[in-house]
């Protein structure tokens, strides 16, 4: 059994992004999704620091530090891009104009709860950024994360123990082992990597798994 690489997860998420969607890719792993947007689909990337129509990283000699993504990495602007202030940018987010936001996750529960900003309610330096606005505002939230943390503990749990980013907002979860639909208060596996049994996957998961009638083989689409 070979888990997907981070690039593999990114590529799998990208497959589910429809032509014409306006999409925000969260800081960290979700940023990688931009490299795998399917050919033939026109997708406008939004970044909370004030752009719609964000393009790929520039060549080194073209870096302009006033043109960065929310993760502070240099980006470019595609023809047809627009710039706006933070009031408009978060109006776009909170006003439910984005078809999709892809976020990283620490924990996800079957009720759609997401924790991704603090591992401890008493964290003296909790870093929220734009995640709570995106969680509350995007039409859909996809979460992209490793199935287990570095110590092997599950991130898909009966309920989140870390402070929530948003309640009841996750629609799909993409991990290195599987793809999960989150609906009707349960996790339903729709894709799994080859060579992994349902029992093994369940053992690595902290909440009951259901399985779609047809479970697709999850492989690096790149």
């Amino acid at each position, binding site marked *: 059994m070979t888990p997907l690489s981070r690039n593999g997860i990114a590529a799998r998420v990208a497959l589910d992004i429809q032509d014409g969607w*306006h999409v925000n890719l969260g800081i960290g792993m979700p940023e990688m999704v931009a490299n795998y947007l399917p050919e033939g689909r026109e997708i406008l990337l939004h970044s909370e620091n004030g752009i*719609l129509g964000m393009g790929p990283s520039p060549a080194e000699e073209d870096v302009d530090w006033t043109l960065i993504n929310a993760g502070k990495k240099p980006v470019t*602007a595609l023809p*047809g891009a*627009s710039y706006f202030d933070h009031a408009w940018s978060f109006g*776009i987010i*909170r006003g439910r104009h984005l078809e999709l936001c892809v976020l990283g996750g620490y924990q996800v529960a079957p009720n759609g709860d997401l924790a991704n900003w603090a591992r401890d309610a008493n964290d003296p330096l909790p870093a929220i950024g734009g995640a709570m606005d995106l969680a509350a505002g995007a039409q859909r939230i996809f979460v992209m994360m490793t199935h287990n943390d570095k110590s092997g503990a599950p991130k898909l749990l009966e309920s989140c123990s870390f402070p929530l980013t948003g309640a009841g907002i996750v629609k799909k979860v993409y991990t290195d082992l599987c793809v999960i639909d989150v609906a009707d208060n349960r996790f339903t596996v729709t894709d799994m990597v080859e060579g992994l049994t349902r029992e093994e996957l369940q053992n690595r998961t902290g909440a009951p798994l259901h399985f779609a009638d047809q479970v697709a083989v999850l492989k690096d689409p790149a």
Partner: protein
Amino acid sequence: MIDKRADDLARAFEGLGDGISVMIGGFGDAGRPAYLLKALLDSGIKDLHFISNNAGDGDTGLGAFYHAGRVRKLSCSFPRGSVAPLMEKLIRAGEFELEVMPQGTLAERIRAAGAGIPAFFTPTSYGTLIAEGKETRDFDGRGHVLETALHADVALIHAEQADRFGNLTFRHLARNFSPLMASAAKRTIVEADHVVELGDIDAHNVHSPAIFTDLVYQCHDVPEDSWHDWRASA
């Protein structure tokens, strides 16, 4: 591919029926979407709820809709102009409802709808007739009134430039309510003086970003006479 450009005006109101709410950009004639208003008149949709700063004038543009008996309600700040006597007659006949509010409250309620803010407090109208029956609260010793977001089914917008993504610019003060309305409606339909190529509008100077636009039409003049077709159909 994202291409919001359209030719067929039938598409503009496809799937929409009587009773819809329609935001109409513009302040006086500046930014008034005459071409789309004519298309709405031709669509036959009635029982309209208009949201527009001004009530309209005469028997063209907005005015034609009162004469044709097609407006159920108007939310505005300034119901003056030559349609006023007709509006008053319709109100007295119980055939028309008028909701008047301060212009800044109208703008902020529309902006709130687009920006995902369901309600806000404003000092405007506190202590006046307009605030009667509304929730109020003191902040820093001053009275404020709670106002709620104002959404619509459709927004009709006149832009100077539009590209196929739906980025817009406005000429001089034709901007006014238009970017706010574009953000607050389920379907935002734009008529543009110039439909331009992607990239022709500098990203720095987009006045209404593409994400709010659903359809873009090349604008055409509406002959003065053609507004009176409602007489035949009425």
